Each structure stands twice: as C-alpha cells, then as structure tokens.
C-alpha cells in the first residue's frame, strides 16, 4: 500500500499550535491562522534534545544521592533520600505505595533517558529499524513525562503539614531541587525531539501494509 503524501512533498507545514496545514509557498515564518512561528522541523532538534538530556542526567545523580527530606521526631532528626523513602514503605508492608514512588521517581526518569538515547541514536544513524515502534516509544515518553513530579509534590505537602517544632518537623532538602530539575529538563528534552525525523528517510512505498496485518508479516523490509 502506498503511504499518503507527506507535508514536505505537498509543500505544506504543520502548525504545532493550531494544527493548520500551512501552505509554504513564499516561505511564511508565521502560521497565517494563529501567528505561531512555523518550522518544517523543530529547530536544532537533535542538539537540543541531547543537551537537555545530558543536563537532566547530570542532575539525576545528586537527585538520587542527596537527601530530599529531613524528618525530626522528638529531637532526633534523620535525612532520607528517595530510595530510602521507597524502602521504608516497603519494609512497613506498604508495597503498593513503594511501587508507585519507585516507578514515578526512579524508573520513569530512567526509562526516559534510555528511550530518548535510543531515539536520538537511531535517528542519527538514519536507521530504518522499527519506525512505527519508535514512534510509539516517543508518544510513550511524552505521556509519562511529568509523573516524576510526584515526589516533589509529596515532599512539599508533607513538609507543609508537619510543622510542630520540637515535637515533629519535616523539611525539604536540596535533593528535591535536583530532582525537580531532572523532571523539567527531561520534559524539555522530550519536547525538543521531533518525531518526524524518524520517518524522514522512509521509502515512498511501504511494502505490504494493510492496516490490520502488519504484525503477521515476518521481517518485511521496504523495497
């Protein structure tokens, strides 16, 4: 089955803000409908994605090593990191909460680093491999993006509540700053990536692609 024409073949460009298919004859710089800037591809997509991702990766280390919270109960204080919080829940039998925090705070950023690196490397190598699945992977990364903010908000709420001076006091610690920065930078990184780059070197005719049966065809390669 022949794929539909692409926007660049028709000299069109998608406006990311209002979704209009803009006619690019005369190279307009703005969407005629909503005035948002138009780009055929996101500017410096790969460089920006790498840069934001490395920034996030650099913050990921202190985010996990430094304490995020300090709990003082009856005079004796203790710092806790994200992982020690997870373990504490686990030991108290609250495995479900432990899993939620672990997934949101540690697994999600980790998965995002791996997924973005995979997307970046395959695009840079002009890979033909599993385009559709890579598109899916990108959508997944976008979807899980902000859930890592969870721990920041938990610490904020808990710290706002437990304010009993000597009796009991919870304070946020500097780890939470790095942790929040990881979330912000991974979000920026995912936003800078242009998923259309995955398809830019795709051949015109995709072999045997009726909508329902793509999975049954083993090792189909475009001609």
């Amino acid at each position, binding site marked *: 089955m022949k794929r539909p024409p692409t*926007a660049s073949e028709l000299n069109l460009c998608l406006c*990311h803000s209002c979704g209009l*298919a803009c006619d690019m004859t005369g190279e307009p710089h703005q969407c005629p409908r909503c005035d948002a800037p138009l780009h055929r591809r996101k500017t410096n997509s790969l460089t920006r994605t790498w840069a934001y991702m490395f920034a996030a990766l650099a913050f990921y280390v202190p985010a996990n090593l430094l304490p995020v919270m300090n709990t003082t109960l009856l005079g004796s204080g203790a710092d806790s990191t994200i992982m020690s919080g997870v373990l504490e829940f686990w030991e108290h039998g609250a495995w479900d909460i432990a899993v939620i925090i672990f997934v949101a705070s540690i697994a999600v950023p980790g998965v995002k680093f791996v997924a973005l690196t995979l997307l970046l490397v395959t695009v840079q190598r002009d890979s033909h491999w599993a385009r559709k699945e890579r598109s899916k992977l990108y959508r997944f990364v976008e979807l899980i*993006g902000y*859930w890592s903010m969870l721990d920041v908000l938990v610490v904020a709420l808990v710290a706002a*509540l437990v304010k*009993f001076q000597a009796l009991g006091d919870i*304070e946020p610690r500097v780890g939470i*700053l790095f942790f*929040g920065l990881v979330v912000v930078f991974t979000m920026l990184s995912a936003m800078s990536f242009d998923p259309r780059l995955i398809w830019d070197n795709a051949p015109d005719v995709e072999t045997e692609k009726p909508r329902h049966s793509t999975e049954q065809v083993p090792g189909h390669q475009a001609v």
Partner: protein
Amino acid sequence: MASTDQLIICEHCDCVYEKVVLAKHQKTLCVRCGAVLQRYNNLSVEQRLALSFTAAMLWLFANFYPVMSISMKGLKNSATLWDSVLALSQGPITFMAMVAAISIIIAPAFQLVLLIWVLSFALASRRSPGFKLCMRWLETLRPWSMLEVCLLGAMVAVFKLAGMLDVIPGIGLFALAVLSLLLIRIAGHDVRELWDIL
C-alpha cells in the same frame, strides 16, 4: 492547491490526510505511524463553558480549603496547596517552589481563565479579543499543568503520614480530585476545534 483547511497533517510522521467527519467514539489513526489524527469531540461550546465554570469554582475550593490536616498529640495543622508551595520556598531550593507553583496553581488557573474568556465569546460565535494569543497559550500551558500528579502526590502523602499521626483529608483534596479530571477533559487537545468553528 485547494484550501488547506480540510487537510490534517500527522504530528508524528508528516503524512497528509483529508479530514473526515467522525461518529461517537470514533478516532482516526495515521496508517504509517499509528498516531491519533482526529478524535470525536462530544463537548459543545456550551458544555465546555459550563464545565470551565465548574472547574473554576473547584479551583477556588482546592486552593482556599486545606488539602488535608493532621493531628498529633493534641496539636493540629493543615495545609493548602499554597502552603506546600511555600514549604519549598525556603533555602536553596526556592526555584522548585516556582516550578511547583506553576504546575499546580498558576498553570491550571490560567488555563481556566483563558478557556472561560475564549468560550464566552465563542458562545456568541465570535472570536474573543486576543483569540490567537489565548489559544497559543492554552497549547503552551498544557504540558506544565500537573494537577493529576498533585492528586496522586496528595494521596501518597496521606499514606506516608498515616503511619505516625492522624490524617484527615480536607475539602481541598476532593476539589482537587474532581478538578484534575475535569481539566484533562476540558483543556485537552480538542480545544483546537474552536479554530474551525469560529
């Protein structure tokens, strides 16, 4: 070339399609990359506006009533969303307070104000003053509005504290729960349809 209004470009792979009219529960997918192209929108302008007002009320409740309160040995304390932002604002982590404030208070508030503004005029089939700017901001704000994360966070906080003291969920928490679901519904991608009908 004929008008490009009726064309739709896949955000994920640049394929061009013609728009189709959808029935309830239908959506169209890109044949090449599988991304969703169109989704059936079952909210009329009136309904969306009504829900926006509801959400605005809930925003007030979520922000002015405590999300939860705790008591320990006769001492009581409660916290609103703003209190939790303030809790982050001390010391070197002030920047995080700003991020938190944007994601759980400011972004949702702006989304609601913009929606009400734009939709009130849409009710009279008119574009509001600054329509373009408002619609662009609605797009920009969406990824930074994280109320649903805040809701899950509040629930985790309940469990975290329940071990050492008594936790009482407040009105703010219930308002937050409904508000976060409403926002997903009314401030989603399909707001863009206003471009076509106005």
